Every structure is written in C-alpha cells, then in structure tokens.
C-alpha cells in the first residue's frame, strides 16, 4: 500500500470518535466533525443527522484550501483557525496534526471563547491519536505487505461494479 493513501482502522476510529465526543460535551457544541484535508469525512460526534456530512466535508476542505492559498499569498504559512459566525449557528474550523480539519458547530449554548479553549485541549489529544495511528500503519505495512484486501481484486470484481 502506498504511503500516500490514508488508511483508517477500527481502533483508530474509535479513539478519534471518543475524543470528538469528549470535545463536543466539553465545548457544549451541537456537532463536531473531523475531515481529511482532501474533503473526506473521518469521524463525527453529536447531532450529526441534521447535517449533510459529505457536503460539509467537501466544502470545509475547499474553504480551508482556499484560505491556505490566501495565507501563502500574503506570506503566512497558514491561518490556523477559521470562524464563521451565523445568526444562530457558528462554525469553528481548525487544523490538527497538519492533515486533518476539526469542525465544531455550536450555537448560543456555547461561546467562541469556550469553543476555542476546548478545541485547543482536544487538538493535543487528537494529534497523539494520529501519531500512534501513523506508527501502527507503518508497522502494519512492514510486517505484512500484502495485507490489503484489494490485492486480490479480480477483473471480474471490477466489471461487476459497472454492470447495471
């Protein structure tokens, strides 16, 4: 498996979800999402059903990518936090572990100050989880190079996907 694929295993996901649940409670937020910088959703916690998670992930990544572009234009490395304020709901967006985007959606039951504080605390935890996931993935590929279920994909499997 090439190192640039992003691989997520069950136990990594559970730990991420646990950290998100804690953040959601601590920050008194509506929902918390973790999104890959390329626009794929990784994990979520809270009132997730009321949001179109796939769209949210893609737009957030676009938003961050555009803002990163702006940052470079003016000679900044990145803008580490984005905040969008609505009438009722607000979005707090930050980067964790360089490659993931943490999205917190909150209303007046919380505040920007509280959210900021809790996000800072949670970011450290999330970073540690990502680090250990990366280590695990490395060891996994070294120990067993053909562990990928896709190494056995047949042409028939692929054709079957497209038969309708």
């Amino acid at each position, binding site marked *: 498996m090439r190192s640039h694929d992003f691989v997520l295993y069950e136990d990594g996901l559970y730990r991420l979800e646990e950290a998100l649940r804690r953040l959601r409670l601590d920050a008194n937020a509506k929902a918390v999402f973790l999104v890959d910088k*390329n626009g794929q959703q990784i994990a979520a916690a809270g009132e997730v059903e009321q949001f179109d998670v796939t769209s949210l992930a893609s737009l957030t990544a676009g938003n961050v990518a555009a803002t990163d572009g702006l940052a470079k234009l003016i000679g900044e490395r990145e803008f580490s936090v984005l905040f969008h304020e609505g009438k009722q709901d607000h979005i707090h967006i930050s980067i964790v572990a360089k490659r993931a985007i943490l999205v917190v959606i909150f209303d007046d039951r919380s505040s920007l100050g509280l959210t900021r504080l809790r996000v800072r605390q949670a970011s450290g935890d999330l970073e540690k989880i990502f680090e250990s996931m990366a280590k695990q993935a490395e060891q996994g590929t070294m120990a067993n190079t053909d562990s990928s279920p896709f*190494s056995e994909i047949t042409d028939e499997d*692929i054709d079957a996907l497209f038969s309708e």
Partner: protein
Amino acid sequence: MAFINYASKEINCKIVYYGPGLGGKTTNLQFIYNKTSPEARGKMISLATETDRTLFFDFLPLDLGTIRGFTTRFHLYTVPGQVFYDASRKLILKGVDGVIFVADSQEERMEANIESIRNLEDNLEENGFDLKSIPYALQFNKRDLPNVLQVDEMYRVLNFKREPTFEGIATSGKGVFDTLKSVAKQILIELRKR
C-alpha cells in the same frame, strides 16, 4: 490519495474533471447526477458564478457498489476551466486519484485544449503527481456541433500517453459514463497493485 476506511469498510477515491472553459465538465457531472439513483449519489454542489461558470468546483459523491465487502465511493470534482482561475485548479487537484480531461472538439478551441493539458501537467506536478503515471482518460466532447475537428486529428494533437479516449456529447450523455468507468477502473487496478 485513496482513503481506505477499514472501520466503515469504505474506499473513497477522488476523480477530477479537467479541461478548458466551457468544454463541458460541469455538464458531465450534471448528466451523471441526473442518471444515478438517489441511493447511489449524494447532493451535487456547484460553486458557480451568476452566469453558471464554475467558480471554485463542482462536487458529486457517487457510490458504485461494493467490492470485496468494501463500499466503493468516488468523489467527482470539476475544476474551473477559465484561465485566470489557476490558483483554484491547483487546490482541487490535491489528493487526486484519477483525471478526466474534457476537450472541446470545436476547431477554434484546440489552442485552449492544448494549453489546458499543459496546465494540467504543471499543476499535477506541483501537487506531487505525474500525468504519465496517474489514471487518466480523454474525452472529445461536443461531437454534435458542426465545426468539430476529426477525431484522429484531435487524437494526434491531444493524446498524451495512449490513454483511453472517448467521443462525447455531454448534453445528451453520450460517452459520459464510458469515460468515468474507464478512469474508475484504472484507479481500482492501481489500488490492487499497492
């Protein structure tokens, strides 16, 4: 950069539609959206100008079914083709798994096609990819128009590495799914190699 999720048993791959302005990239996505059952697709997002030109990207998530127990999901993106949106095009190519180049078959758009392929090559490189090795297909779109170039003439000029090539009429859907399938297949075969 495929995203392989063992927890939810999903593979997510990213396909980007590239090509000159008004070539028919957004129309390709719209046709796919209209012809796919609601269970198999999510919402289509279009960040467009008031005149329906792509401003940042179009996005369409698509489920193709399962393979070895994994749900196979493709995220389709289009870039804005207008020359001055180059910074945005670069951003959309991040983490791409495969590219579909939608060429405009009209004679007067050949310069724009050539320019856009060059631009694709540069922008892929800036993102750490190589057009020589990335899954890639070429679509000659707008075949219904009167002022189009011959297919073999277009192939001679635009073919980059003997990639699979398709004639298209995106407005009526001709060639749209064939082009998509071709790149999706190449991506899955890549995945097998890893």
